[in-house]
């Protein structure tokens, strides 16, 4: 181990585990290193992206419409409250015992976890669109669908992306426990210490943390990019990390 890394002790070894292959703790197999971890990482991202896409396709149109007609207050609050409290582990175990193992199980769980923030944030985003603007548009003869598409959706985009950001972080984080259902994501070294050792567990944990933070930053940037300049100026809290207080951030893993 290079002297610099040695100082960090366990963390140094964990970082070395990420980059260099080594023999497994139980012996006889080479584990660790970029190729293997990239494989886990690819699986991790594939299930995350798939789940987020499905959840978005389901939740956003629904919440847009509900926000437009103004009937979804209870649903928005209820889903966010319940969604926050359901432990991801319980949900995964529930699906294991009722549905079985594999990708279907994992992606279903991730979709369920991703939906609440999307519904709540999209709904609130649409509700917060200035009513006068909507009335003016209606006065001009726009149909409901047109209003949603041309007025409410664009103005609600920052809120929608806030929801996407929260969901993305939750999904990537929860994908860590997917190996319990036979889908080998980056959580695999964490649940198999016999093979990967504590050093492997730590290395995988570091990778998961780094990736999740990267996803968070990515979506924060995207959110900023879709916020119309006018809204940015109108925001009472000038810090760019500040999102509207009524939009809830959820965390499920």
């Amino acid at each position: 181990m290079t002297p610099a890394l040695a100082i960090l002790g366990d963390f140094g070894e964990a970082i070395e585990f990420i980059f260099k292959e080594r023999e497994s703790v139980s012996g006889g197999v080479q584990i660790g290193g970029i190729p293997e971890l990239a494989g886990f990482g690819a699986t991790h991202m594939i299930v995350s992206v798939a789940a987020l896409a499905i959840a978005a396709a389901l939740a956003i149109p629904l919440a847009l419409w509900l926000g437009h007609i103004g009937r979804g207050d209870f649903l928005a609050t209820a889903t966010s409250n319940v969604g926050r409290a359901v432990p991801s582990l319980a949900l995964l175990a529930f699906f294991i015992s009722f549905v079985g193992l594999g990708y279907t199980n994992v992606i279903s769980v991730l979709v369920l976890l991703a939906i609440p923030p999307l519904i709540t944030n999209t709904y609130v985003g649409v509700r917060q669109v200035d009513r006068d603007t909507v009335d003016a548009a209606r006065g001009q003869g726009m149909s409901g669908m047109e209003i949603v598409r041309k007025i409410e959706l664009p103005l609600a985009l920052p809120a929608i992306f806030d929801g996407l950001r929260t969901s993305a972080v939750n999904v990537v984080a929860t994908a860590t426990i997917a190996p319990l259902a036979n889908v080998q994501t980056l959580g695999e070294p964490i649940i198999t210490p016999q093979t990967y050792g504590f050093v492997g567990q730590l290395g995988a944990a570091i990778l998961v943390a780094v990736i999740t933070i990267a996803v968070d930053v990515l979506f924060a940037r995207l959110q900023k990019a879709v916020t119309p300049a006018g809204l940015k100026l109108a925001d009472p809290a000038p810090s760019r990390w500040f999102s509207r207080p009524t939009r809830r951030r959820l965390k499920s893993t």
Partner: protein
Amino acid sequence: MTSTHRRILAALAAMCLTFGLAACGEDDSADTGSSGETPAAEGKVIQRDAANASKETITVGSKNFTEQYILGEVYAQTLEAQGFKVKRRLNLGSEQVAYKALGGGNIDMYPEYTGTALTSFFKVKTADVPKDADEAYELAKTNYEKKGITALERTPFQNTFIIASTKKTATEAGDPKTASELFTKNPKLSISGFPECRQREDCLLGLRSTYGFKGKFVSSDGKFNDLDGGQSDLTLAFSTDPQLALTDKYVAYEDDKKFFPPYNITLGIRDETVTAIGEEAVQTLVAVQEGMTEEAMRELNRRVELDKQEPKKVAADYLKEEGFVE
């Protein structure tokens, strides 16, 4: 205001009701297994020694599956019956975690399988592990000694891996009796096993090299649940699994190439703890192992896994039925 109060009361009532049912439903005096007569177990009953209460608390650990919970509880309750103060840290995780905890002093003892100790801790290749149970134990004991750990006498029973499938799969596979037959005729069957198995020489990797297993590996510790749910064709079960007794539902295949090493339990105790608890306590710990045959362990596992009893109670019943505790 009132509606909120009502909602709170309703939620609290729901919680109280669910736990109140526990008070009504639980039958503390349930005597599920006692055959009625406990013959005067001449000198077998564990004697309480008042001096032990003033000694330091002993921490008993275990790994994270049914048999380990039961064993951990048996040893813990044995010590408690002698008057020691005992703390439990069961459900530690895999053997790596447990071994680390033992070495670091976080726990004072935990039960380990001889085969696992040799291959996982002492770097003995699976093929080099002695096939004889006593030899394997002696080798493990010597290795443990070098680490400052005393390995108590091995248990009568061993809990080795055994390949199992549903009866239906067996019939479709041509009713093979041994693992070799099974794999030569049906190389494509999938097998499920606990996650670490995927990368272990004494598990999947060995199966592939020794038995020429070519099928898919399903990483899951569901065992018979995987078979029932159709998640895999075969599974790596434990020989003390209670489901193996259901011979009309499941079939086990003989390990004719003697691939798996012996897996008897030996309680690994830190040397300092051995000195602290004294020779008599150590002998008692060995004595309670007398009743641990494969059949007995299968029954104990059955009570937890199928009857859903708690390991603590099952361990207590074991000690009572065997006559170690009144």
